[in-house]
C-alpha cells in the first residue's frame, strides 16, 4: 500500500494506492468512502477491501474527499459536486498511476451515490458497486440530525457545515441515481430489505433495470457503534471482489 497526495496545491487529496498482486489486464477500482460520521468506522473495511481486490488482480485507489480525512481543506461549505469531482480526479489518478484502461467504482452509503453519478457522466467507468447505498437522501438527512439539535447546521461526525445547498443536493439522491446507470451495477446490502430496494429501483421511470441487488448479511461497517467491535463484513467484501472479477 502506497499512501500519497495527489491533485493540485489548492485541492490536495490523500490517496492510498494498492497495486495489483497479479496480472490484471489493466483494470482498476476506485473506492468511494461514505461521508460524515460514517467515514471513520468504514476505514478498516475499505483497507481490507482494497487488499482483497489487489489479490484478485485489480489496481486499487481509495482516497479522502477534499475536506475529509487527510485531504486538504475543511468541510465548510463543500458541496456534492466537489465530491463528485474528487471521484473523477481519483479515476484519472488511478488510470495515470497504474496505467489502468478500465476503472470500476465501489462506493459505500453516500459514496455509492457519488460513484453512480460519476459513472453516469463518464464513459470510461466499467462497473459500479453500490454498497449499502443511500437510496433516499431526505431520510438520510433526517437521520443525521444530532439528538440535541444542530449547531450551525453541522453534520455529526466529520463536523461539516451542512449548507442549504448541500442539504438540497443530499436530498436529491433517489433510487434513480442507480436505476438509470447504463453499466453493470451491483447493490450489496449487509442489512435491510432486498425486496424493497429492488422495488424502489424498478419503480424508476426510464430505469435500465440492470441493477443486481444482493443481500449479504454482515456487520454495518459504517455505523460508529460497531467501531472496533463489529468485525468485518467478510462475505460482502468477498462478494464485491468476486463480482468485479
Amino acid at each position, binding site marked *: 500500500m502506497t*499512501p500519497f497526495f495527489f491533485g493540485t496545491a489548492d485541492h490536495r487529496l490523500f490517496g492510498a494506492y494498492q497495486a495489483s498482486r497479479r496480472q490484471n489486464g489493466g483494470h482498476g477500482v476506485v473506492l468511494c468512502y461514505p461521508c460524515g460520521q460514517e467515514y471513520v468506522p468504514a*476505514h478498516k473495511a475499505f483497507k481490507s477491501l482494497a487488499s482483497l481486490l489487489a489479490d484478485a488482480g485489480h489496481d486499487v485507489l481509495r482516497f479522502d474527499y477534499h475536506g475529509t480525512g*487527510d485531504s486538504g*481543506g*475543511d468541510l465548510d461549505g463543500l458541496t456534492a459536486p466537489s465530491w463528485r469531482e474528487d471521484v473523477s480526479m481519483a479515476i484519472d489518478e488511478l488510470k495515470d498511476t497504474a496505467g489502468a484502461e478500465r476503472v470500476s467504482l465501489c462506493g459505500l452509503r453516500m459514496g455509492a451515490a457519488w460513484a453512480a453519478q460519476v459513472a453516469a457522466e463518464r464513459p470510461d467507468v466499467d462497473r459500479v458497486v453500490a454498497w449499502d447505498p443511500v437510496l433516499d437522501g431526505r431520510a438520510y438527512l433526517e437521520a443525521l440530525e444530532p439528538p440535541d439539535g444542530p449547531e450551525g447546521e453541522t453534520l455529526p461526525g466529520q463536523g461539516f457545515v451542512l449548507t442549504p445547498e448541500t442539504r438540497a443536493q443530499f436530498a436529491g439522491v433517489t433510487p434513480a441515481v442507480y436505476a438509470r446507470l447504463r453499466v453493470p451495477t451491483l447493490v450489496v446490502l449487509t442489512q435491510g430489505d432486498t425486496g424493497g430496494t429492488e422495488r424502489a429501483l424498478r419503480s424508476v421511470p426510464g430505469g435500465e433495470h440492470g441493477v443486481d441487488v444482493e443481500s449479504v448479511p454482515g456487520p454495518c461497517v459504517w455505523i460508529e457503534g460497531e467501531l472496533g467491535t463489529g468485525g468485518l463484513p467478510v462475505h460482502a467484501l468477498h462478494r464485491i471482489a468476486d463480482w468485479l472479477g
Partner: protein
Amino acid sequence: MSDRGRDDVQERIAHFGRPKTLVGVTSLPPSSQAVREHTVVILDVGVIHRVGPNRLHVQLARQLAREGFVTFRFDFSGIGDSEPRPDRVVQDVVRQDILDALSYLETSVKARSFVLVGLCSGANAALRFARLHPAVVGAVLLDPYWYKTRGFYLRHYGRRILRWESWRKVLTGRGGHWQLVREALRRDEPPAPPPDDSLVAPPNVIPRAEMEEGLAQLTGHGVQLLNVFTGGHEAYNHKEQFWEAFPRFRGRGEIRVEFLATAGHTFQRPSDRRAVIALIAEWLTTKRFGRTAPTARAAERTGVAPAAS
C-alpha cells in the same frame, strides 16, 4: 481557523518504522512562519485512525503548524493505514511505535524535543510514554482516565436530588443508587486494577498510584502538562476535581487544568474543536518547556540515551 481554499500548511506522508509498516503525516509550518523548537506528536485514540474523532487531529495539526510547530500524526501498528508489526513478539507495541515515530522525526525534521498530545486512551499512552522518554518536554492530556472523588459524587447526586424521577427510582430501589451511595461513602475511588506499565495497546485505565507517581516524576523533571477535561468525561464533572484527586500537586506550575464543561468527549461540535485547538495552541506558544536529565531507570527502560537537558 478554516483552511478551506488555502492549503498553506505543507504536509508530507511518512512511511516509517523498522520495517516501514507505520504511516503518518507531517504538517510543516508555512515558509513564512519561523519553526518552533518543539515537535508535536498526536497519538491515536483507540481504534480511530490518525485523523482523530471528528477530524480533530487533522485540524489541530494544521493549526499548530500555522503557529510554527512541526506536527506529526500517525497510526499505531494495526490501526488505520499502519500494518501490524511483523515482529509480534514485541511486547510494548505502542511504546515501540512512538519510539519509531520520534526516531523518524529526529531524522526527517531534526526534531530534538517533543510534546505528546492524546485523547482518552491516547492521553493515557502519552502520560505513560512521557515518563519513559527524556526528549518529551510536555504532554497534552485530553480526557485522560480519571478518578471519582467524593466531590464528584456530591455534584453528581446533588444535581439529581431535586428531581422527582430520581427519588422515584431511589424509593423503588431501581437504578442501583443505594449501592453507589455506599460506594461513595466507603472510599474515594473504585479499587485500582493491578499496576501495569506496559504499552501493548493504548491503556484504557491508569491506576491511581501510577498516575500519582507519574505526575510526581514528570513535574519533578519540569515536564509541562496540560490536562483538559470535557463534560463528556464519565468520571469528571468539575475543574477542581483534578486537585481533589491529587491535592499535593495544587500550585505546581507544570500542571494546568481546564474543564470544558459543554464539550463532548469527541469534540463533535465545531465550536468545541475550535475552543480546544485554541487552548492547546495558546498553551504551547506561551509555556516555557524544558526537562531535567532523565533517570537512569527511564533511559534503561526506553533504550534511549539520555538527552541533554
